[in-house]
């Protein structure tokens, strides 16, 4: 049964909820099963009350072992000034503070409990711009409120909240993702191939792994392969398998990915990378449900559910003669799926940022830095590192959880991130979160002793300036990384490379190589043959360069449209 916390200066709301909405459970401050307003102890002088102001709500929430499923919050609070937020009212008129107290409470709640959904009793007649544009906040029209209306709004909010998150997949609230989810639910149970289109980094393989395969009911394994990373010469053996000695260096019998995935799911990423001959062979395997290894004559069962993905427009490639029409039709294009890029999911971005930052914060790679930073804070007995939290707002100790590590990003940083176009999509988002945390942690760890925070709770603020830096905004100062411009001999190429911290040497090396290849690409006006010659000497094959660029996520199509 969903548990609700009602924050209202009057007892009427919770009384009405309790009387008329028995489908919900209610949070109380004493832990009894029924709200204090209808508790027999109330008449005996019990001092405990439900949340009538922010302080009482905060006390209740911090005492609870788990958060309620939803908060019902009133807008107007008729309370003495000392019980109203903000603590420093400055020039604010008391009457206005009372009339909009719910918004002040909401702001504080969002900062402390960013994932908690809220139904706010308010009016939609005012200026909508003054109401928070938060997907977790739902508004219930005050004028027509009755228990049935409120129950419907609470149920709707709970449904939306629970539907937004499903295991590791955050579907969010964008119509495009809702449609994708609906289609995936059907196609997962279909034996037919699934074609997924989407820009690089949109999570195509993630959906295959976490949605399509688990829901297919297949007993066989999931095999994932990125065709842009397999050299042409090895591609047939990789796909279809090989007998020992069938080609130079083949020392053992080898099952290809089709065979490995028999009875399960085969995810072929970047299927547009296949040449026409391999496309023909792939079509035969799909038609027959069997595969014959290279150098062998025996057909073996190979009937996985095929999930193919591409960041190109296959229909276009068919028209250009670069992709076989018969294979395209075999991939079931009528039901092809389109994964929306991040820039089309702006309403979900604050949640996606939270996930990305939390994932980075809890990653093994960052653990040493996080531990070193947390060692500076006195740690309460009930401190749980896994409860780490990301909040949007001003970093304030009193707004942070006492028993966990809280990372703060400002609202203006959030706005900057929401305005970003995210060409690298989730991949870029993950890197940004990692970079921002590494920079912030290192800056704090390297700060002079007297400037270090030393009181609980453990908080970390990611500055707006840093967000600009890791976004690589034009005009923003570059991160304090090394600039490589070493001494060179005549004829050597000099390339300036700026580095950001990364969790591993592998990622740093990849970043260096990526920038180097991009510089070469522009210097050679996109001629891969001449790039290959410069890199490997006369006679070198452009394919080698193309393959490496693909492995590093450098897509020719994107580079050709990008400024040098």
């Amino acid at each position, binding site marked *: 049964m969903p548990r609700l916390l009602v924050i209202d200066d009057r007892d*009427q709301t919770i009384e009405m909820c309790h009387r008329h909405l028995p489908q919900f459970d209610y949070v109380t401050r004493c832990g009894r099963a029924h709200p204090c307003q209808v508790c027999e102890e109330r008449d005996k002088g019990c001092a405990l009350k439900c949340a009538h102001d922010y302080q009482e709500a905060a006390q209740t929430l911090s005492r609870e072992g788990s958060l309620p499923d939803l908060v019902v919050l009133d807008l*107007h609070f*008729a309370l003495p000034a000392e019980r109203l937020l903000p603590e420093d009212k400055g020039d604010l008129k008391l*009457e206005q503070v009372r009339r909009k107290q719910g918004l002040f409470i909401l702001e504080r709640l969002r900062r402390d409990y960013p994932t908690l959904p809220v139904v706010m009793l308010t009016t939609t007649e005012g200026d909508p711009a003054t109401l928070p544009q938060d997907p977790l906040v739902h508004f219930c029209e005050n004028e027509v409120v*009755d*228990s*049935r209306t409120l129950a419907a709004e609470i149920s709707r909010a709970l449904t939306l909240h629970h539907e937004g998150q499903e295991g590791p997949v955050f579907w969010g609230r964008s119509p495009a993702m809702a449609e994708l989810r609906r289609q995936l639910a059907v196609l997962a149970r279909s034996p037919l191939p699934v074609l997924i289109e989407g820009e690089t980094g949109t999570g195509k393989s993630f959906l295959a792994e976490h949605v399509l395969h688990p829901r297919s009911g297949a007993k066989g394994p999931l095999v994932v392969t990125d065709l842009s990373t397999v050299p042409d010469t090895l591609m047939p053996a990789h796909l279809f398998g090989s007998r020992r000695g069938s080609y130079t260096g083949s020392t053992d019998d080898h099952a290809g990915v089709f065979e490995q995935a028999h009875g399960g799911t085969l995810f072929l990423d970047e299927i547009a990378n296949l040449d026409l001959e391999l496309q023909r062979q792939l079509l035969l395997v799909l038609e027959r449900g069997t595969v014959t290894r290279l150098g062998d004559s025996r057909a073996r069962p190979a009937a996985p559910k095929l999930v193919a993905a591409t960041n190109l427009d296959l229909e276009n490639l068919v028209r250009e003669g670069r992709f076989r029409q018969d294979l395209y039709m075999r991939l079931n294009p009528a039901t092809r799926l389109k994964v929306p890029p991040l820039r089309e999911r702006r309403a979900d971005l604050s949640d996606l940022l939270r996930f990305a930052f939390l994932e980075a914060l809890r990653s093994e790679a960052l653990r040493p830095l996080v531990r070193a930073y947390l060692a500076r804070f006195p740690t309460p007995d009930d401190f749980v590192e896994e409860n780490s939290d990301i909040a949007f707002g001003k970093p304030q100790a009193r707004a942070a959880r006492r028993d966990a590590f809280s990372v703060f990003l400002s609202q203006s940083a959030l706005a900057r991130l929401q305005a970003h176009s995210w060409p690298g999509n989730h991949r870029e988002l993950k890197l940004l979160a990692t970079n921002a945390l590494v920079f912030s942690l290192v800056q704090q760890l390297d700060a002079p002793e007297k400037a270090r925070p030393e009181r609980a709770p453990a908080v970390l603020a990611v500055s707006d300036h840093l967000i600009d830096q890791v976004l690589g905004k034009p005009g923003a100062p570059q991160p304090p990384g090394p600039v490589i411009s070493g001494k060179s001999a005549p004829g050597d190429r000099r390339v300036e490379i700026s580095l950001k911290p990364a969790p591993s040497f592998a990622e740093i090396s990849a970043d260096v190589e990526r920038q180097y290849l991009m510089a070469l690409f522009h210097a050679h006006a996109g001629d891969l043959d001449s790039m290959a010659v410069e890199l490997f000497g006369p006679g070198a094959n452009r394919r080698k360069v193309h393959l490496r660029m693909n492995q590093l996520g450098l897509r020719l199509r994107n580079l050709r449209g990008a400024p040098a």
Partner: protein
Amino acid sequence: MHTWLTALRHDLVKRALWPARDLRDGGGRDLAALRRGLLELVDAEGMPVTAEALFARMRVGSPCPAAACDAFAGALQGAVEGLQEPWPRPLQAVLALEDAFQQLARSLPE
């Protein structure tokens, strides 16, 4: 809507009408709920106050014409007095506040 009307709706009308709407839609004869909604109110400081006393205080700052305020005060008095009458008069009297509030809102020039 004028802030004064918003305040009146929040402090008084909503409190009285919520239980009345529930009883109208769901049935029942919960006179106590109607009484709580109309008689056990609090003012801006959180102090107990009756609906009539609260409106008398609030109308000092009303932007509405005096006649419209008088009409609403009459409806309010009718609702309070209606609580003493046999069912379903208490419910009807409280529900009448909905129309009275709309009349009051319409009395204010756009």
